[in-house]
């Protein structure tokens, strides 16, 4: 097990460096072809070259390789890697904030959102999947299938805006007029977006919208998995042991069926992070997804690379944990 972990951790190195280099090269190319991102700071008012140069220097975009189209800027890359891994210095953004600080400010919101999303998709997705799986081909099965697939085929930004307007504003306003409904529910949970007064309650709906995206996959995966296992010999054995149906399903089928689902959920954290970009914008969650999207647009290389490096590390570690959890769930898998 220890060996397995070490080996996996060693495998992270090329992955993380590769991802960093890819981003580094892309952002460098962006600067080389689109020009100095610092220029945007001055908006309509053209700065004097001296001022521009001073700011560029200060923000770390002055490396001459950034003027040579196609130059992969290896020197800059090595500097960045050194700063990140040896000095824990992820650079600064255009407004001279430390990336580490920005991430520290914003990561909690995104994490909360993700946790809500994952719990939502896990609980609802698995429940729906089990329900559908036990009644393969029936009305319930089709209902779950169609409704979950419907959710994923509506683009998330449409879904998000609709939920915000109809649930948060329209329905929420009705509730807010009701005296007897506690504020946490009326103004917190049904707030049309993130609200600092109710930092958790107001994230529940955005989290669900984010989770809805992967809900369908979770449900479908569970369904298939349940349908497979329900015919397995060991389930038949459990029946033959005279166990109640609840136990046959809940203990002997579910745990085996959850193995692929758990794997998927682990992998999904990465995609949920991506989906968070849109959700955060629509529900005004001051999270990391929104921040990094903005950075990517304005060409803030340091932010993009810094944040994504952190994200990738998080994703990889989560995946490792999921793999280990996998071994706990399925004793047949033992990592030597």
């Amino acid at each position, binding site marked *: 097990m220890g060996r397995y972990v070490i*080996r996996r951790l060693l495998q992270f190195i090329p992955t993380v460096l590769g991802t960093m280099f890819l981003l580094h090269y892309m952002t460098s190319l962006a600067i080389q072809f689109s020009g100095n991102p610092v220029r945007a700071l001055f908006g309509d008012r053209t700065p004097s070259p001296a001022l521009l140069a001073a700011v560029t220097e200060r923000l770390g975009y002055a490396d001459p390789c950034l003027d040579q189209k196609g130059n992969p800027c290896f020197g800059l890359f090595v500097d960045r890697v050194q700063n990140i891994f040896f000095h824990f210095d992820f650079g600064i953004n255009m407004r001279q904030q430390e990336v580490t600080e920005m991430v520290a400010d914003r990561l909690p919101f995104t994490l909360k959102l993700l946790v809500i999303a994952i719990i939502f998709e896990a609980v609802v997705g698995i429940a729906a999947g089990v329900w559908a799986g036990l009644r393969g081909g029936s009305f319930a099965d089709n209902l779950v299938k169609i409704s979950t697939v419907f959710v994923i085929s509506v683009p998330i930004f449409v879904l998000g805006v609709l939920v915000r307007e109809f649930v948060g504003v329209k329905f929420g306003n009705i509730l807010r007029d009701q005296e007897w409904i506690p504020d946490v529910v009326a103004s917190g949970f049904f707030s049309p977006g993130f609200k600092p007064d109710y930092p958790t309650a107001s994230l529940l709906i955005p989290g669900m919208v984010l989770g809805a995206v992967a809900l369908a996959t979770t449900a479908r995966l569970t369904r298939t998995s349940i349908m497979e296992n329900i015919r397995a010999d060991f389930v038949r054995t459990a029946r033959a042991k005279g166990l109640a149906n609840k136990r046959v399903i809940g203990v002997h089928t579910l745990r085996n069926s959850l193995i692929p689902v758990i794997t998927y959920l682990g992998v999904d954290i990465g995609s949920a992070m991506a989906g968070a970009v849109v959700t955060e914008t629509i529900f005004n969650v001051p999270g990391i997804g929104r921040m990094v999207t903005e950075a990517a647009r304005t060409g803030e290389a340091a932010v993009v690379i810094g944040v994504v490096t952190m994200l990738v590390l998080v994703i990889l570690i989560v995946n490792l944990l999921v793999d280990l959890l996998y071994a706990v769930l399925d004793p047949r898998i033992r990592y030597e």
Partner: protein
Amino acid sequence: MSDIVLEARDLVKHFPLTRGILFKRQIGAVRAVDGINLQLRRGETLGVVGESGCGKSTLARMLVGLETPTSGDLFVQGRNMAKVGGAERRRGRRNIQLVMQDPYTSLNPRMTVGDIVGEPFVVHPEVLPRPRRRARVQELLDLVGLNPDHINRYPHQFSGGQRQRIGIARALALNPEIILCDEPVSALDVSIQAQVINLLEKLQDELGLSYIFIAHDLSVVRHIADRVAVMYLGKIAEIGTEDQIYENPTHPYTQALLSAVPVPDPKLRGLRDQIVLAGDVPSPANPPSGCRFRTRCWKAQDICGQQEPTLDARPGSAHPSACHFAEVRDVVHARE
């Protein structure tokens, strides 16, 4: 000795067990086949029996060239397969063909019978010019008792026994002298099994084939084989003619094996002197010292742990037997 078509000398196959994080180092080996000497004469059938995992299939795979031996030599019609190269080796290989155990999995479900049986000609185009292939395939189908008009059907349209015939036809395509049958009938029903065995015998008569016939059903081997080798943990425990092995087994393992075979005759119930072996076969990764059978042997003495018995004829036995105390023991047999 020109009538020896196949000879194995000290054939060894070890599967390495590795460990290591970056650089794998070998920490041991599964000694699947651990020094086997065999000779197969023209027109003869050599049966190989033994418990699951004793290395029968590995031996077979080495003989047909699917696996390279760790050490030892393999002579096909006097040619050392390891020494000759290129065309001659291909020709040598053409001479040994394989019939696999499971007729359901050994045929590509997406290929027609014609394609499957004709594949050897595509791989060895020199054997037969293209225009004549189809006719030859039909001939082969006819030979194994299938309707030649079924050349465009897919394997799933056939029953297990018929599929095994397709496998046999494929093996016959290149006009080999030797056919290796790795448990060709274990997956078949008793009633179908007899059909396939009859076919194999018929083909041997007509084409003068030599067979190596692997099986764990001792009565089938007895029926078809001229000589029988008994394997235990990667080694041959005893080898001799069918009569010698079945009537006068001298190795305790052979004796136990034979006594364990249930006899389809209720009258003999309780009359047989059954030896029920205790315990399981030891792991081939870590075989016992000296005689490999000693851990389950009722005759074992100190010498068995220290000195490995050679496969030789001993005073107590007229044929080669790898036991220090080889002697004939009376066993009540079926159908006497």
